[in-house]
């Protein structure tokens, strides 16, 4: 399977490419007042508002750097009992894809309640990189607040 690599803080992460619609540059986003700090804002994507999650905020204490390699990964996101939506993920150093055998995935065996979006691990020459489990990214309450208005 093809993985898109990026960094969150100093750690390397990957996302399965089959879920990705498009990778776009870090554009101007519309801030959402009173939203959790890991929601970077709303992206006017082809005429429809798409919420963008700042993965750095989710995985570390700071926001993503504003630079050319920070990009927004647009991915198909399945809301429970609802149609598929598009969700934007903002990450750093989105510059590389690698091919990995799905059999080479190692289950992390650690489930952290605060970070249910951590998935399996992949080993490579630079060490371990962790896959993002898309379904665990948003808690149910955030899901409904972000997407309920559209449905």
């Amino acid at each position, binding site marked *: 399977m093809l993985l898109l690599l990026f960094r969150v803080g100093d750690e390397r992460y990957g996302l399965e490419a089959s879920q990705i619609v498009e990778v776009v540059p*870090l*554009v101007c986003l519309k801030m959402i007042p009173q939203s959790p700090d890991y929601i970077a804002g709303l992206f*006017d994507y*082809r*005429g429809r508002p798409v919420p963008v999650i700042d993965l750095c905020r989710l995985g570390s204490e700071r926001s993503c750097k504003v*630079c*050319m*390699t920070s990009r927004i990964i647009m991915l198909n996101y399945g809301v429970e009992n609802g149609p598929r939506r598009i969700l934007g993920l903002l990450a750093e*150093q989105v*510059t590389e894809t690698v091919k990995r055998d799905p059999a080479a995935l190692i289950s992390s065996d650690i489930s952290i309640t605060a970070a249910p979006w951590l998935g399996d691990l992949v080993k490579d020459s630079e060490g371990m990189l962790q896959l993002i489990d898309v379904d665990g990214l948003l808690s149910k309450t955030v899901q409904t607040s972000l997407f309920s208005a559209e449905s």
Partner: protein
Amino acid sequence: MDIKDCWNQIGVRARVDERCPKLERVIHCHNCEVYSRASRSILEQDFPADYQQQWADVYSREEPTLQASRFSSLIFRLGDEWFALAAQLIDEVARIKPIHRLPHVDSRIVKGLVNIRGELKICVSLSDILGLENASVSKVGEHVVFARIIVAHADDGQFVFPVSEVHGLHQYQEEELEGVPVTVSKATATYTVGMLKWKDRHVACLDNELLFYSLSKKLQ
């Protein structure tokens, strides 16, 4: 930004005896991860002015729907006039070959027999069907012109006809097909479904069904 350009110091660009040991494995600096990491770090910089806003504008627009060209036709020349014939009917464009005349056959339509890949085929004259005058006159412009033989197929068999020149394929949309102007000579207009604009001239798009129908009628 601090980039250590080892490819200039000990890599393939360096004029020194002592080379990077990694070269034995990667052969060229282009294949080395140090090189690709350095190139990626060039992107680790601030946005140029207006960059974010420009991209925001690009993505706020509706996605442009790319319309694929739905029609394709072969453009060729008969004498002084250019014609287009639907590309899916063309089997082959062959080099001009000797055409063996047949005795006691109307030589205006049937030019004779021609050998196409070991098969003898009846070679017809498209210019006579279309009522073109002086079709044999080949106008040589600035470039070298090669006469060709086109092998096309219809529902009831193949047709082989010589042309003065073949340009190649041209793709177009249905709406690009314009009506036939009244000034076009009557015989040609009958076999034309529309005019195509190609380069700076108009090309008559041939009605293949009617053309091949009347061809097979005349051959009987």
